[in-house]
C-alpha cells in the first residue's frame, strides 16, 4: 500500500492522463467485442490474443526496419483475413449453439494462439520503439510519451471511421439489421453468413489496430491476451451493447482505475485488481438486477 499518489497532486494528474490515454485503447478493443457480441451473440475469449497478434505484426515491421506506426495500416488488413479464417474454421459452427459452447471454443482458440505465438515470436516481453519523444506538461512535472498521444488519436480516428461506415455503407446497414433481428434480416435478403464473417473480420481488424498501437506504446507478450479480453468484456457490460459513448467513457474510467491501482497496490497486483474489479462489477450488477426483480414482484 502506497498512498503517495494522494500526497503529490502531480502524480494524480499523471495517473489520470495516462489512464485516459490507455482507456481509449481499451475502448477500441471493447468496441470490436460489442460489435460481434451484438451481432453474433458470441463472447470471444480469443479477443485479447488477436490484439497481441496484431501487436506482433507491428513489432516485426519494426524489426525489419519499417517504422512501426505503419503497422496501424498493415496489421488490420492482415488481421481482417485472420478473423475471416477463424470464422470459417470455427465460429460459424458455434454461432447458433449454446453460449457456453462458443465461450469454450474461443477459449480453445485463445490457448492455441497463445502457444503458437510463443513458438513463433519467443516468450520475451517486447516493444516496438517509435522514437516519438515525450511531451512535458505542467512545469515538467507530468511526462507524456508522444506515442501514447499518437495511439489515442489513431484509436479515435478509427472509431469515428467505423461509426460512419456502419451508418452509411451497405454492409454496415446489413450488420446493424442482423444485430437487431437476424431472422428478419435473412427474410429481407441479407446474407447473414456473409455479415457474420465480415463482423468477425472487422472485429479482428480493430484488434489489429489496437495491438499495433499497444506494441508502440506499451509492451507485448504472448501470454498477455486474457487480461485484454477481460477488460473489453468488463467495458461492454458496464456500457451496455450498442452504447458507443458509454464504451468510450467506461474504457477511460477503467484506464484511470488501473493506473491508480498500479500506484497504490503495486504493479504485481495490477492484473489481479482488473480481474477482481470484473467480479465486483458483476456482483453489483446482480444485486441491482435482483432489486429490480423484487420491485416487479
Amino acid at each position, binding site marked *: 500500500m502506497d498512498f503517495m499518489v494522494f500526497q503529490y497532486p502531480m502524480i494524480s494528474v499523471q495517473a489520470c492522463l495516462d489512464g485516459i490515454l490507455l482507456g481509449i485503447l481499451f475502448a477500441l478493443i471493447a468496441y470490436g467485442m460489442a460489435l460481434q457480441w451484438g451481432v453474433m451473440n458470441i463472447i470471444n475469449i480469443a479477443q485479447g490474443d488477436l490484439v497481441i497478434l496484431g501487436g506482433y505484426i507491428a513489432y516485426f515491421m519494426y524489426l525489419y526496419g519499417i517504422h512501426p506506426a505503419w503497422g496501424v495500416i498493415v496489421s488490420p488488413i492482415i488481421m481482417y483475413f485472420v478473423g475471416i479464417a477463424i470464422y470459417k474454421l470455427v465460429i460459424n459452427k458455434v454461432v447458433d449453439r449454446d*453460449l457456453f459452447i462458443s465461450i469454450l471454443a474461443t477459449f480453445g482458440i485463445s490457448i492455441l494462439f497463445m502457444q503458437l505465438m510463443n513458438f513463433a515470436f519467443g516468450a520475451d516481453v517486447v516493444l516496438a520503439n517509435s522514437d516519438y519523444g515525450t511531451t512535458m506538461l505542467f512545469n515538467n512535472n507530468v511526462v507524456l510519451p508522444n506515442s501514447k498521444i499518437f495511439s489515442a488519436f489513431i484509436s479515435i480516428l478509427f472509431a469515428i471511421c467505423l461509426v460512419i461506415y456502419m451508418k452509411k455503407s451497405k454492409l454496415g446497414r446489413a450488420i446493424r439489421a442482423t444485430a437487431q433481428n437476424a431472422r428478419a434480416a435473412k427474410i429481407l435478403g441479407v446474407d447473414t453468413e456473409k455479415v457474420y464473417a465480415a463482423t468477425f473480420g472487422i472485429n479482428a481488424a480493430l484488434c489489429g489496430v489496437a495491438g499495433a498501437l499497444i506494441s508502440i506504446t506499451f509492451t507485448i507478450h504472448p501470454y498477455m491476451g486474457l487480461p485484454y479480453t477481460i477488460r473489453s468484456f468488463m467495458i461492454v457490460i458496464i456500457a451496455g451493447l450498442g452504447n458507443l459513448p458509454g464504451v468510450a467513457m467506461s474504457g477511460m474510467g477503467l484506464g484511470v482505475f488501473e493506473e491508480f491501482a498500479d500506484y497504490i497496490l503495486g504493479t504485481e497486483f495490477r492484473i489481479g485488481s482488473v480481474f477482481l474489479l470484473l*467480479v465486483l462489477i458483476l456482483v453489483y450488477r446482480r444485486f441491482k438486477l435482483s432489486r429490480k426483480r423484487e420491485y416487479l414482484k
Partner: protein
Amino acid sequence: MNKNNLLLYSGILIFGIAAPFIFPAFKVQLSILCVLIVLATTWNIQGGEMGYNSFGNILFYGLGMYLCASVQVGMFFPLAEWTESGGEKTFVHTPVQFFQGMAVGLIVAAVVPTIVAGLIGYSILGLRGHYFAICTLGLGVAAGEISGGIEIIGAGQGFTTPPFPDIGSLDSRGEFFYFLSFFVLVLTFLAIRGIYTTRFKLILNAIRDNEDKAEAMGIETMKYKIIGWMISAFFCGLAGGIMGGLVGYIDSTDVAFDGREMGVFMVLMAILGGKGTLWGPIIGATVFHIFKEGFWTFFLGWQYVALGVLIVVIVIYFPEGIMGWLREKYPEKFGEVIDEKDRKAQVELK
C-alpha cells in the same frame, strides 16, 4: 442395486486397490488420474446437472492446495521462514508430524473452500449464463494473480510442500498418495452417487432446464445452487490438497490456479465424457488422461497447441460426449423407450 452393478463396483474396487502393485511404475499417474476424476465429477455437479458452467472451480482446487501445505508446515514450523528458505533442509518433518499435518491440512483444505464457495456463491450464483462463466473465469485468474503477490506463501517463487518422510521402503510415498487419492475418489463417487438418487438432483436438473419455472414452482433455487457449488468446492479442495503433496511444489499460476491446465481440463473431461451423467466424467477423465499421457510426449512442446485444437474439436464435433453418443446409439440400454411411430415421423420430416 442389481447384481450386475455390484459385480462392476467390486471389480473396479479390487482393480483400484491392486492397481499400484500391478503397474508399480505408474503410481503417480494413477494418483493424478484419481484427482482428475474427482475434479471432473465435481465440476459436473454444477456444470452438467445444474447448468452453471464454471471456469472457476480451479479457485477451490488452488485454495485447497495452498491451505493444506501451509497448515502442514505452519503447525510445526514458522511458515514465513519455511517459504524464505525455499524448502531447504533446515526444517524436517518427522513421520508423525507429517501425517498429523497432512490430516489436519486436508480437513482445512476441504472445509475452508466450502465456506468460501458459500460466501461467493451467494453473490455470484445469481448471474446467469455467460455472465457466470466469465465471472468465474475472472475469479480463478484473480486468485492466481493475487496469490502470486503474497509473500508468506512464497509469492512468485513458489512454495515447496514438506517432503515425504523416510519410513522404510522407497515406494511408500507413491503408495501413500495413491491410496489417499483413491480413497478420496471412492468417497466422492459414493457421495455423488448418493446425491444423484435424491430429490436434490431433480432440483438441480430443474434449475438447469428452466430456472424461472423452478422458482415459480416454489423451489428456493438460490439455496440449492449454493449447496451444489459447496459440494463441488469441498471435493475440489480435498483434491487440491492431495495434489499439492503429490507434486511437491506449489506455484501460484502454474500449479495451483492453473486456469490453462487444470481449470480447462476439468471442463473438457466432463464434456468429453458427457455432462449430466454419473459415469460420463469418469470415462471422460480416464480417456483424456490416457490420451494426454500417451500422446503428450509426441507433441513435445506442442502440447498446448494440441490442447487448443482438442478443445475446439471436442466442443464443435462432440458436445454430447461419449455417454451422449452411446445414448444415441443404444437408447434401450439407458432405459429409454422409443416410440416407433414417432421415430418414423421424424425420419420422414428429415
